[in-house]
């Protein structure tokens, strides 16, 4: 067990024992290799369940608007930015949450590791300092963690939580100065027909399970537009029209709010590149509104504010 995990347990135990929170939302060991699982700890004697490693892939902030008790929460950099989002959007009161901030080294992309092993089943995985050792029937490979970071973690520039009540573990170095949006620029440079073909191919795999939507910390609408039947905004088939509209509308709904935690991407059972659209939104919001979501409690939300000096170039 790592020092960070121990510190998380100690903090959780103290918070629960002192009655400062009713529940601690963290991660417990998963039931499969390369997995961990969100957990809700309410008993100070039960905090040894909590773990911390590079498979803690879910964004736990997702649970906060739905939990009515006072909650402690284990927050990576992206979870913390999502909490800022929930606070600034009025979905959460600051005094109702105790943030156990954890500087994050990035999360492993289990699908990428599976692809690397070309269908061979991983029976055991063990995280080392720089490598993850995976074993299965007749193989044992040490894979570079860096090479198998989730794409959202490679693009991340906020590994250290921007908001916390306690910081557990030492701050980590933030990403280098390299172009954060290189992936978006590369895609933007492609001909429109190629981009269109890409979206069609990706969304053709979508089974409309809504895991992407439900994993998102900022998708908290009590009734999602996809679930409204009067009027029926959106068809519910897997026809490309319906599926594309769903993905486009989902991306637009998180424009200026998405912190690119990648939870949607990791939740998708079919490996649909759901970040492709949200990344573009994120880049555009930064360019046009000079806003990076979830970085500050004081900054106005770009799509919920105005100024008399706003440029009106778009009005012809």
């Amino acid at each position, binding site marked *: 067990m790592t020092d960070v995990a121990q510190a998380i347990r100690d903090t959780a135990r103290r918070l629960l024992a002192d009655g400062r929170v009713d529940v601690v939302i963290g991660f417990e060991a*998963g*039931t*499969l*290799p390369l*997995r*961990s*699982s*969100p*957990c*809700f700890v309410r008993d100070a004697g039960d905090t040894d369940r909590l773990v911390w490693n590079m498979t803690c892939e*879910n964004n736990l902030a*997702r*649970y906060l608007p739905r939990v009515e008790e006072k909650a402690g929460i284990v927050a990576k950099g992206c979870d913390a930015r999502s909490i800022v989002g929930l606070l600034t959007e009025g979905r959460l009161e600051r005094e109702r949450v105790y943030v156990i901030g954890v500087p994050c080294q990035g999360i492993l992309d289990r*699908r990428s590791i*599976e*692809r690397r092993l*070309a*269908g061979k*089943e991983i*029976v055991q995985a063990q995280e080392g300092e720089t490598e993850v050792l995976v074993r299965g*029937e007749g193989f044992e490979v040490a894979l570079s963690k860096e090479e198998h970071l989730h794409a959202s973690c490679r693009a991340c520039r906020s590994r250290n939580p921007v908001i916390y009540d306690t910081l557990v573990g030492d701050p980590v170095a933030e990403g280098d100065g390299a172009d954060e949006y290189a992936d978006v620029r590369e895609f933007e440079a492609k001909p429109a027909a190629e981009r269109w073909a890409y979206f069609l191919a990706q969304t053709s*795999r979508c*089974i*409309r*399970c*809504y*895991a992407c*939507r*439900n*994993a998102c910390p900022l998708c908290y609408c009590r*009734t999602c537009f996809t*679930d409204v*039947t009067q009027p*029926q905004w959106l*068809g*519910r*088939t*897997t*026809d490309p029209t319906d599926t594309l509209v769903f993905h486009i509308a989902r991306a637009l709904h998180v424009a200026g709010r998405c912190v690119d935690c990648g939870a949607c991407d*990791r*939740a998708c*059972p*079919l*490996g649909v590149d759901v970040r492709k659209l949200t990344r573009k939104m994120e880049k555009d919001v930064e360019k046009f509104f000079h806003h990076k979501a979830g970085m500050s409690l004081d900054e106005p939300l770009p799509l919920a504010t105005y100024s008399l000096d706003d440029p009106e170039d778009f009005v012809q």
Partner: protein
Amino acid sequence: MTPLRVPKQQVAGLLTALLDQYQVIAPVEEEGLVTFGRLGSPEEAVLDYRNARVSPKGLLFPQAEVLLTYNLASERAELQEAPQQQERQVVFGIRPCDARSFVLLDRVFEGNAWHDGYYLSRRRNTTVVALACPRPGLACFCASVGGGPFSTEGSDLLLTDLGQEYLLEVVTDKGAALTEAWSEYGEAGEDSLRRKAELQQGAEAALAGRVEIDGIDRRLKGMWDDVFWERLHEKCLGCGVCTYLCPTCHCFDIVDEGSDRQGQRLRLWDSCMFPLFTRQASGHNPRPTGKERWRQRLMHKFCYSVDSYGEVGCVGCGRCVVNCPVNLDLRHVLNEICSDRTHQGT
């Protein structure tokens, strides 16, 4: 009928012969993702796979299908029922768990009370060539829910990979009919049969005792108000991964799309994990939270299904286990229900 041996280099020829007469569905791979797809040519088939990400239920019960079209534009109303599938298909290389799921679906769509023509036309035109499962996956538990890695239930033919060749066993008359034209394959010898028995034994041993669900239906009946349900769903995202990837989940919704003058009536997969599943026109929802939805999902599969059909509605393929975004593991939930720790009363 005596089992045959099909040397691996002849599988392409076998598939080519099938493609002449049938639409052939087999495991295919794209970007490292194995799914069941329509074969264009034999070499697209991926037979050294564990299992496909998405189950084959959509081959018989598509995620969205047109039931009828309506048109009120002319003098009188016109209703046109959607044509039923006539094309004959061979589903080649699915695992025994998935083949068995067809039998569970049959019980629903060809039940005592109702025969579903849309499903049955596809089912009747489908021949299943299953591929035995000598290396079950980590999350598989077919043997705990009434199936087995070499089960022939739901299959018309069963193939077993013996290394250099496949052992081909005929299970049903439909399967026998498929092999009638195949004169080029010799009879399998004692060695082949012995090898298969060894593989089967190994696979069954690997699966033994993975999940214990003896008497689960009775236990669930006594658990309606158990505190167990209060916390079980807590981490659940409420998405449809488990039910949509499940080979036996079969709940659907019927919707009309179009105008008041013309349009179509569709049948769509639905999921008991979605809030809309039970929301009534008044706005009232009898299953308002994950608690009631999880209870329903487990009750349906492991209690009501036993009441209605004598078997649990799960084939143990493990898809819901592997693909749950929060690793809420059905195997552990089942073990917990069947352990004595669970029942803490209300």
